[in-house]
């Protein structure tokens, strides 16, 4: 996210959190205040109603006492209690009793006034005639009214099908003797008024009394249906109140509307007084306040947003300027410098930037100067090429080497300038370099005078600059030398080939006349040996011997040359089988010399089986042939050295002096007289030729009288793992020397 919106967002969020926090705090404390106020008010109302109720009950008690003390009532009662019910006297007393009570009935204070028999509780006289004759002996007001004035708390009257309250007082005769009970059913309208009296402040306030049977003793404001009233009330507040507790609770009342409810147990009345107010109304002001807070917060937040944006802009503007300047500088406008007028950190940053820019420019200038020095000084040909391969800058060496002024070549295309024969190769090389980033190629380039010179190019691409940097060196002399060398090598090869061919042909073609000579000498020998003189016999013998030797020499020479001419058609060769075959071939020699020939398990190698047979046979044959006094003991072993099999054949023969170890491999070179050791001296030369033909090497390690060890290496069928366990077969001391030697030689 960019700095300006981020900055703005942070500021706005901070402001929002602040406003929400403060708003909630203000709202909650306001709500709490309102709640406390509402509770206080409800409690005050409850107290006031309790006091008023007690006062009203006291008034009623006083009234009934006054009525009971009314002399007219006492007089009537005396008669009513004693006179015959049917008598005139009784009826008059009845009349008088009702008349005495009349003012209180008319005023509505009492609904019914009755005189109760002191023992049976029978209603002797009543302002409601239907009550007369009933018995109230178990009613609380009667039982209590006999001993003193009493107001029975609200109870449900089955007869009235309604809540009733009855006051009673003992009626005493003039001599203060208890005579009867005067009872009055109270008009509950007054009590209802006391309880439901409302201050004009609220809309949803309500107050009512509930008796211990959960029945409404006064009518709640919002319940009018008597049937519903009769069911009673079972809300949480009433439940608690009827457990004789007083308190405050926020609960849904009988209307199922959340309300603040103050309940008060009235111990004197055995009633529960409930005063409540809907929460909606109680918290009405705070809602308006809440809306005001919300609206205010929104306005403030809006202001905060504007302020935040302005602040963020003022902070980010110089940063943006800085960024823009930096970008311009980065694009290559090195003269860009930032405004340093600001005194704050950004001003300092600008100063630092300018300093850095200056330093950078100076550094760059210095680098360029140095590069230019090298460019101009270099004896090699330096140039830059653009993406299409055209020359751009060329250094003075071009003039010195090829005679061109830089501007003569500038703009020309490299591939069109080189020797036409090299054009396509150069094109390909340039393409490859463009792909790989760098590369080399060689091509002929014309001098100004039209002669071509060989140039070796080193080219690197610079994708940033879209340039090719090229350095070229005149290698014409080297190319010529190389060419000469190549021609010499070819010549040598050809002459070698010719020589071998000559040798081959000669040995082959020479055999024919030799055979003729040999045959005729044999004829001579057979026919004239002993017939001529002794000298003639000797000459014939020499001639025979000479032709035989010549035959052997030619055969070996042919064998030697045929190795070079044979095809290199190599296949896996089991050296174990080769070894077995050789033993069979040499059976006679082994027997004659009582030789012991042993070997390691031998691997399979890649080669020509016939040649390898010849190789092994030559070496073993030599080992047996050049024996000392002891019967020959020959061992053929193998080991693995780097990626070659290293074979060796060790004997206990006469050995070779170190100075002769090379000579033994030269064809027809002999170290001993033919009489001591027969043979032409071609065996080891052929062996070397075979080994070298197979890409291997052969050498001998020996001291006179101490036997000799011939080593040769051959290719494995597959790449060998370096240093496998087979090397262990060599005895420790020899193994190291052999392996070291082998490494040196290979």
């Amino acid at each position, binding site marked *: 996210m960019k700095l300006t919106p981020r900055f703005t967002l942070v500021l706005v969020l901070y402001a929002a959190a602040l406003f929400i926090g403060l708003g909630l705090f203000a709202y909650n404390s306001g709500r709490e205040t309102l709640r406390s106020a509402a509770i206080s008010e409800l409690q005050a109302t409850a107290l006031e109603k309790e006091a008023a109720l007690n006062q009203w009950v006291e008034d009623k008690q006083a009234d009934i006492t006054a009525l009971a003390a009314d002399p007219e009532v006492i007089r009537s009662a005396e008669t009513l209690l004693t006179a015959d019910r049917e008598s005139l006297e009784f009826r008059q007393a009845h009349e008088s009793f009702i008349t005495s009570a009349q003012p209180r009935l008319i005023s509505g204070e009492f609904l019914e006034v009755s005189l109760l028999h002191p023992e049976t509780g029978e209603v002797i006289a009543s302002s409601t005639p239907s009550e007369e*004759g*009933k*018995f*109230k002996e178990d009613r609380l007001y009667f039982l209590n009214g006999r001993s003193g004035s009493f107001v029975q708390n609200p109870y*449900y009257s089955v*007869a009235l099908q309604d809540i009733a309250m009855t006051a009673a007082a003992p009626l005493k005769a003039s001599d203060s003797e208890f005579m009867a009970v005067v009872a009055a059913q109270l008009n509950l309208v007054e009590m209802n008024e006391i309880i439901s009296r409302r201050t004009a402040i609220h809309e949803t306030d309500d107050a009512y009394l509930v*008796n211990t*049977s959960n029945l409404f003793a006064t009518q709640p404001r919002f319940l009018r249906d008597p049937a519903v009233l009769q069911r*009673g009330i079972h809300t949480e507040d009433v439940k608690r109140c009827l457990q004789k507790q007083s308190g405050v609770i926020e609960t849904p009342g009988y209307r199922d509307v959340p309300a603040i409810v103050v309940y008060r147990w009235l111990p004197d009345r055995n009633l529960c007084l409930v005063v409540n107010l809907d929460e909606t109304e109680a918290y009405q002001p705070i809602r308006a306040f809440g809306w005001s807070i919300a609206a205010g917060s929104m306005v403030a937040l809006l202001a905060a947003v504007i302020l935040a944006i302005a602040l963020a802009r003022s902070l980010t503007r110089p940063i943006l300027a800085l960024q823009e300047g930096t970008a311009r500088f980065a694009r290559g406008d090195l003269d860009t410098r930032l405004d340093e007028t600001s005194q704050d950190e950004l001003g300092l940053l600008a100063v630092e930037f300018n300093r850095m820019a200056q330093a950078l420019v100076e550094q760059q200038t210095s680098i360029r100067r140095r590069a230019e020095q090298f460019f101009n000084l270099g004896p090699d040909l330096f140039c830059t090429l653009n993406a299409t391969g055209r020359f751009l800058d060329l250094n003075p060496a071009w003039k010195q080497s090829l005679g061109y002024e830089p501007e003569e070549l500038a703009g020309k295309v490299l591939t069109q300038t080189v020797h036409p024969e090299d054009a396509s190769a150069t094109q390909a090389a340039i393409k490859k370099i463009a792909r790989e980033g760098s590369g080399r190629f060689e091509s002929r380039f014309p001098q100004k005078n039209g002669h071509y010179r060989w140039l070796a190019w080193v080219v690197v691409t610079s994708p940033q600059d879209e340039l090719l940097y090229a350095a070229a060196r005149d290698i014409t002399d080297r190319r010529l030398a190389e060419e000469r060398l190549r021609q010499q090598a070819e010549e040598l090869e050809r002459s070698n080939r010719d020589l071998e061919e000559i040798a081959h042909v000669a040995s082959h073609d020479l055999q024919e006349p030799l055979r003729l000579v040999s045959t005729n000498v044999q004829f001579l020998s057979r026919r004239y040996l002993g017939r001529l003189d002794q000298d003639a016999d000797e000459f014939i013998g020499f001639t025979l011997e000479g032709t035989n030797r010549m035959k052997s020499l030619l055969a070996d020479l042919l064998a030697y040359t045929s190795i070079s001419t044979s095809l290199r058609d190599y296949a896996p060769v089991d050296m174990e089988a080769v070894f077995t075959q050789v033993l069979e071939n040499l059976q006679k020699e082994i027997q004659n010399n009582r030789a012991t020939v042993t070997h390691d398990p031998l691997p399979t190698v890649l080669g020509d089986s016939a040649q390898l047979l010849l190789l092994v046979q030559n070496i073993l044959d030599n080992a047996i042939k050049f024996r000392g006094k002891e019967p020959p003991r020959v061992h053929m072993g193998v080991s693995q050295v780097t990626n070659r099999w290293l074979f060796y054949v060790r004997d206990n023969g006469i050995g070779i002096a170190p100075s002769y170890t090379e000579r033994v491999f030269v064809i027809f070179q002999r170290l001993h007289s033919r009489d001591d050791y027969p043979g032409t001296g071609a065996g080891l030369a052929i062996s070397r030729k075979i080994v070298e033909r197979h890409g291997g090497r052969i050498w001998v390690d020996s001291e006179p009288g101490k036997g000799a060890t011939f080593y040769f290496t051959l290719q494995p069928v597959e790449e060998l793992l370096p240093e496998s366990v087979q090397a262990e077969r060599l005895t420790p001391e020899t193994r190291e020397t052999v392996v070291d030697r082998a490494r040196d030689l290979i």
Partner: protein
Amino acid sequence: MRKTGIFAVLFFIFSACSPTPATSELTPVTVQLRWTHQSQFAGFYAAEHNGDYAAEGLAVTFLEGGPDMDIHASIKDGRTQFGVAGADSLILRRAAGDPFKAIATIYRHNPLVFITLESSGITQPQDFAGKTILIARFNTAILHAMTSHTGVMPDQYTETCCDYDRFYSGDIDVAHAYLTNEVIKARNEGHRLHIINPDDYGVHFYADTLYVTDEFAIQNPDIVSRFLRATLRGWTYVVANPEAAGPLVQKYNPDADPVLEIAKMTASIPLVNTGEDFIGWMKPGVWAGMEATLREEGLLTGSFDIEQVYAMQFIEEIYLR
């Protein structure tokens, strides 16, 4: 093998030691109702329907009563654990040797009243002399007690049974009636009645009372308390919600008229929740008054301890604990 044996023994010990296996297992109890299914027993149905019994770990079965049926028999021999019967009958059965114990009274005002047509001018028992009264045999005690209280002896009026048509035609002067039944029906039919309540004339008889046997109360006080607590919760519920009585009764008696049942329940409210003390509460004075009345009527003779008929311990445990 030996291990298995030991485990079996251990398992046996543990299962023997573990407390009452599962709390989900409910104790089955049966209630013998006084009469056929109707809103008179709505509080019981409500307790069952609202899960109050289940909450107390009880599975309750209700058995209907009816005419020509001795509802006490199954309680006495222990087939059912709880019964609902008139308080006066409990006193008489106890006096006759049945070990019944009242534990709470549901109808603490007796719904039995006497009705006269308004046009008859008969407004109080004192007027019954020389009149014809429609009365069932089992209600005569209250009638006699009431009239005696006002000085009118039973031989001063004629008793008959039980043709209400003759009452409405004026042929019979007074008829016994239930506030929760005949009175509603009569008013529904448009008759203008005058009601004479025995309660106003010194006769205070509890009506439907919940009872058990002494033995059951002693052996299973916990079940009694749990049953009573749930039952009273049910009654408190129907007093506050009389309209629930319609569906509740229909559950047990599909032929019931829900409107009528609600009206009966509504009429019952002041009889159940009298405005004094608590639903189900009993007053020793009322029991004593009933005994006195029954003695006066000659229905009860000989020595008898009224306090054996009722036990306050359960209802006190519920309300005063």
